């Protein structure tokens, strides 16, 4: 009698164990979503390829690869490509779904960069004396022109010039505008830097060395403000 009761009890416990084990086996392991991207930071427009074949099935075979690219685009398949045309930060998401309907996702951030403007300038007058650099004379009015050499996919909203030296108050000598003029009072080599900014905030710097000839400072010394002793300028 007692053994019969024990056997019933034992059977019940075995049933519980079996049920638990069965429940555990019914719990599907999700697949593992993983992918590589050929590029995650580049100026638009650019095309990146995404490879989800690293994804791994834990149980049933992976049946679907669903991609979203963060800009409204979507694709299916283990290997896809996508072109970003607008700058911004996008989250690429891969969802893999196995044959039993269990899914897993992986994400990666893509930075589509605003294309920076191109920058450059010309200046005049200058004397080409051969060699690497152009020469201008001290106290000569030099016109710096960025109107022809700067381009952008949008609009350039500012041109900032730095003429390569500072005042006695240690303030940088600068100017703003597409076309500016400047007079260098001392002979020397100046690195003139132009910084252009477009309407998206993209910035580009362009610099060029300007050599000013003349061994002495050349100050206006006449009533009409002209300089009669421009050092060695003009020979």
């Amino acid at each position, binding site marked *: 009698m*007692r*053994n019969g009761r*024990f*056997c019933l*009890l*034992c059977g019940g*416990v*075995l049933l*519980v*164990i079996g049920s*638990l*084990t069965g429940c*555990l086996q019914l719990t599907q*392991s*999700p697949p*593992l*979503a*993983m*992918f*590589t*991207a*050929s*590029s*995650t930071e580049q100026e638009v427009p650019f095309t990146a390829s995404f*490879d989800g074949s*690293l994804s*791994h099935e*834990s149980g049933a075979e992976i049946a679907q690869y669903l991609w979203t690219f963060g800009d409204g685009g979507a694709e299916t398949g283990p290997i896809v490509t996508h072109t970003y045309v607008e700058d911004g930060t996008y989250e*690429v998401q*891969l969802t893999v779904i196995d044959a039993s309907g269990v899914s897993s996702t*992986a*994400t*990666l951030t893509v930075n589509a960069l605003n294309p920076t403007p191109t920058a450059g300038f010309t200046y005049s007058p200058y004397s080409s004396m051969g060699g690497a650099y152009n020469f201008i004379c001290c106290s000569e009015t030099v016109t710096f022109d960025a109107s022809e050499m700067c381009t952008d996919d949008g609009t350039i909203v500012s041109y900032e010039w730095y003429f390569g030296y500072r005042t006695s108050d240690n303030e940088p000598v600068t100017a703003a505008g597409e076309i500016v003029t400047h007079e260098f009072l001392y002979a020397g080599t100046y690195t003139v830097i132009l910084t252009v900014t477009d309407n998206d905030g993209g910035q580009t710097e362009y610099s060029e060395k300007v050599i000013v000839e003349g061994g002495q400072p050349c100050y206006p010394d006449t009533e009409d403000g002209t300089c009669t002793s421009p050092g060695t300028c003009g020979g």
Partner: protein
Amino acid sequence: MKGLTVCLCVTLLVSTAGLASTLEMTFSAGPSAVSLSQVNTAITAFNVLIEHLNETFDAHPDVDGSVDSLDLMRSGLALRASEAFRLVDWLAVGGHVEILRSSTATRGVYSGAGESTIGIALGISTIGLGVDAHVRFVDVGLQMGFDLGASYYRTTFDRSVIFEIPEEYPDTLSSVPPAGDARYTASTLGLEFGLTIAYPVVSWLTVHSSISYRAASTAGALDSAGAALDLDGNGQSESLALGGLAVRLGVSINIDLSMNGRKE
């Protein structure tokens, strides 16, 4: 919770001692399966990345080296000490302490423009403290019974990860295991069911074998800074599923505690 469990064990053991006719002290050891399903999913992710890097650099002219895959943490060694008071012929109650340990590791270097090391070492240690009951339903020389227990589990998980990808790697991976060393701890309560076959060699010594299933899972293992365990760096913390089958071989020493000197 830990203190409560200890008090419960002590109270049970002391109170039953007065009723007991036999004290059975048992020492057993054996392999123990442990689910650790989410941890093993993370290990699978490690291995997928390692295999991918091995394949990539196997064909790369400027990079040498490979890294071995990690073994999954699906089994470990369990050591158990328990004592039980046999209240009647068919029923004994008692307490136990069990230690379960499992680990896995790999290390390798890719040599290209620089040296990139991948070194991963994972280990889990669990101490279980619990109360249990043993019901004997067959006693024909060979004894057979089932066990039912409840345990408090204190789990420590150690993670040491170096995962340096050579600069020659041309793409960007969606996730890379976060590097660093950390120790995570968690506690939980669990249940254990099992069957035991025992053979009394002499009146005071029994050899036995048992198989049992442990049902326990800890969620939210945290390190000293309060950060959750996230092995694969996917932003989702892994739970420590301690469920699994354990097979043990052991011996019991039976001590007669009866005041009248009755022998079994």
